[in-house]
């Protein structure tokens, strides 16, 4: 397994260094190399029916697939609903190692793509898709699925630009102003907690590494990097330390909560109004309407507070792409479905209405998102504001051992939130750096320190 890993590691490094090169030259010149799309024909004989399995955890995807199946009687897509990003990836990697059992099509979160490519789980579909597909997406999301190379490992599906959600009614009741900088956020948090000692403006969640990553991304961090043919790990950077110690201070002072999100207790707090704000992403309305249905119409969305007044930056939390696996026997048909799913306006409408997703395709963002989500009917400009925010996502490079970094986050920040000191938060970042770097080295990657 070791030599295999390092070969793939080299491939990923090569791909990612191409990403950096592509990032330097701003014009897109070499995109259409090796275009072989349309080189196959859709089978017309019903006896040759192609069966494709599709692993996804987004809700309503079976309904989207049903529309496709109706229009394509000879290519049948069967949706197998999964338990969310981490379990699905674990299962996929097990099936890839076992040599059978993987689906044809797989939903994959952006941060998992380097890992999956390094494990040889995702097929390069650049020959199977229309080269013009690229232009349907923003550079950020397209780079995430190509890793900056000529290969295409997935087609972007949805994205999760981060925003600040708050209870407008509670803000009004206590005369609070919506924070625009993190300094403001700290002041408002303190003020709120003084006026209602049970209420918190937010919580620091030690179980949501993706959330913290998004905040670090906003501050300008990029946790992995490529230097020549070597990976580097830059978790313990000034930007990440700034974010960690900022939250550490708030937790130490007790003005924000230190309990994890997505627990029954957190749900209760959303319902009874003791969690007054939530640093979340564009998909928050779906979660809020499911977990705190009675607070409908009381929330509002705003831009994330900024580190420097006047800045305009955000991070990304969540979002995923749709990939074709290396075990698929019909990658060209799978690629056809994946392209239809994520670029056609017909599918986009369904992704929004059935899946509650924020489509990554630029045209779909305009066509499918005309009125605000039902839960936010009090904020008519919800999606126009969201579109503005989604353009300000900072660049970020994910490495091949995101899972290790994320579980180190859970371990280290789990301790830090218990210790409740600013010092512990800073130390947690340092420990994350060490764990991630050591793992990368021991996995056989070429690592530069």
């Amino acid at each position, binding site marked *: 397994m070791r030599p295999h890993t390092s070969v793939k590691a080299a491939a990923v490094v090569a791909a990612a260094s191409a990403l950096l090169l592509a990032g330097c030259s701003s014009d897109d010149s070499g995109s259409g190399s090796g275009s072989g799309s349309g080189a196959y024909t859709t089978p017309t004989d019903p006896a040759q029916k192609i069966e494709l399995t599709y692993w996804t955890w987004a809700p309503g995807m079976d309904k989207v697939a049903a529309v496709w199946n109706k229009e394509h009687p000879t290519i049948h897509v069967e949706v197998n609903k999964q338990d969310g990003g981490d379990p699905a990836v674990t299962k996929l990697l097990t099936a890839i190692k076992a040599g059978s059992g993987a689906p044809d099509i797989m939903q994959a979160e952006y941060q998992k793509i380097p890992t999956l490519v390094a494990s040889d789980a995702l097929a390069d579909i650049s020959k199977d898709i229309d080269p013009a597909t690229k232009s349907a997406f923003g550079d950020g999301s397209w780079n995430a699925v190509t890793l900056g190379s000529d290969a295409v490992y997935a087609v972007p599906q949805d994205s999760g630009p981060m925003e600040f959600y708050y209870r407008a009614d509670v803000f009004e009741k206590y005369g609070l102003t919506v924070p625009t900088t993190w300094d403001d956020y700290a002041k408002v948090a303190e003020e709120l907690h003084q006026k209602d000692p049970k209420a918190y403006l937010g919580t620091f969640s030690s179980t949501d590494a993706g959330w913290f990553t998004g905040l670090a991304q906003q501050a300008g961090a990029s946790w992995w990097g490529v230097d020549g043919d070597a990976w580097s790990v830059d978790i313990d950077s000034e930007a990440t330390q700034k974010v960690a110690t900022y939250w550490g201070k708030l937790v130490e002072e007790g003005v924000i909560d230190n309990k994890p999100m997505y627990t029954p207790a957190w749900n209760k707090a959303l319902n009874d109004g003791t969690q007054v704000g939530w640093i979340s992403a564009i*998909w928050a309305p779906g979660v809020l309407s499911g977990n705190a*249905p009675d607070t409908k119409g009381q929330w509002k969305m705003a831009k994330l507070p900024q580190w420097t007044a006047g800045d305009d930056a955000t991070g990304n939390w969540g979002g995923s792409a749709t990939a074709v696996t290396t075990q698929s026997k019909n990658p060209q048909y799978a690629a056809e479905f994946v392209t239809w799913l994520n670029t056609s306006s017909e599918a986009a409408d369904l992704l929004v209405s059935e899946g509650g997703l924020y489509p990554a395709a630029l045209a779909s963002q305009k066509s499918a998102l005309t009125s605000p989500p039902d839960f936010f009917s009090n904020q008519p400009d919800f999606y126009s504001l969201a579109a503005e925010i989604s353009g300000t996502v900072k660049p970020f490079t994910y490495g091949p051992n995101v899972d290790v970094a994320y579980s180190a986050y859970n371990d280290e920040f789990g301790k830090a939130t218990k210790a409740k000191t600013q010092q512990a938060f800073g130390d947690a970042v340092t420990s994350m750096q060490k764990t991630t770097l050591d793992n990368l080295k021991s996995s056989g990657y070429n690592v530069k320190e």
Partner: protein
Amino acid sequence: MTATTLPAPTAPGRPGPDGAAGRPAGRTAGRTAWGGTTVLLLGAAYCLLPVVWVVIASTKSAGELFSTFTLAPSTHLWDNITALSDYRGGLFWRWMLNTALYAGVGGVLSVLVSAMAGYGLAKYSFRGKTATFNVILAGVLMPAVVLAIPQYLLLAKVGMTNTYWAVLLPSIISPYGIYLSRIYAAAAVPDDVIEAARTDGAGEGRIFFRLAVPMMMPGLVTVFLFQFVAIWNNFMLPYIMLGNDKLFPLTVGLSGLLNQGATQPAMYTSVITGALLSIIPLVALFLTLQRFWQVDLAAGAVKA
């Protein structure tokens, strides 16, 4: 959890030929042991409170679940059941049927294999008997969870993952069931009876099915219940084996409703209602099979 409340017929060691020697003499009625009663009452409360919680919580709407007083029931039970039944075209009920299939078929096949293996180990002498039994004993100590991944890799080799067989096949072999059957066969099937049957010209298969199985029946019911509950509650094996949610048992299906990823709300009310519905068949099974043990007790008293 329910498994621990089972009376194990073999627990006090091998009962003598009268079947009663292993049983404690029994206290005289009329005296109440307050200390013991208190402990038992606390134990009962500890076991039953979560059930009460599930019953009450399943009557609450999503909004009420986290906002109203824990033990205050509401009126939304039927709404919750409807919502759960509507989820992806009644998938929940399919999970229920799958679980019944895995547990029912798996349990019956497991009893058959356990009974045959246990009887064989108890009543025949052959080379490697002790070694075989020791390996099975070691299997009792090995948690099934540890075996799930190797079993997955083996079944992947023959392309059987993501099928009903992936869950059924590993459930058929139960080291504990074989162990229990051996102990029970040794105690409940007298060698004399087998010898007599052989003298009368009965074949080995006939002796097993006509004589040994009825004598072992109470033990086999216990094995069935153990295995049925174990499969019913099993999570790890189907979780690893299955990718298609139409094949899921209840445990994996319900856990999926809770773990939809950060971007989706967890369907707490549906999961709680589903948990309530999923224990009803188990409770029914225990109540109906309970009389088999009572038969056993009575049989022991009058045999001799």
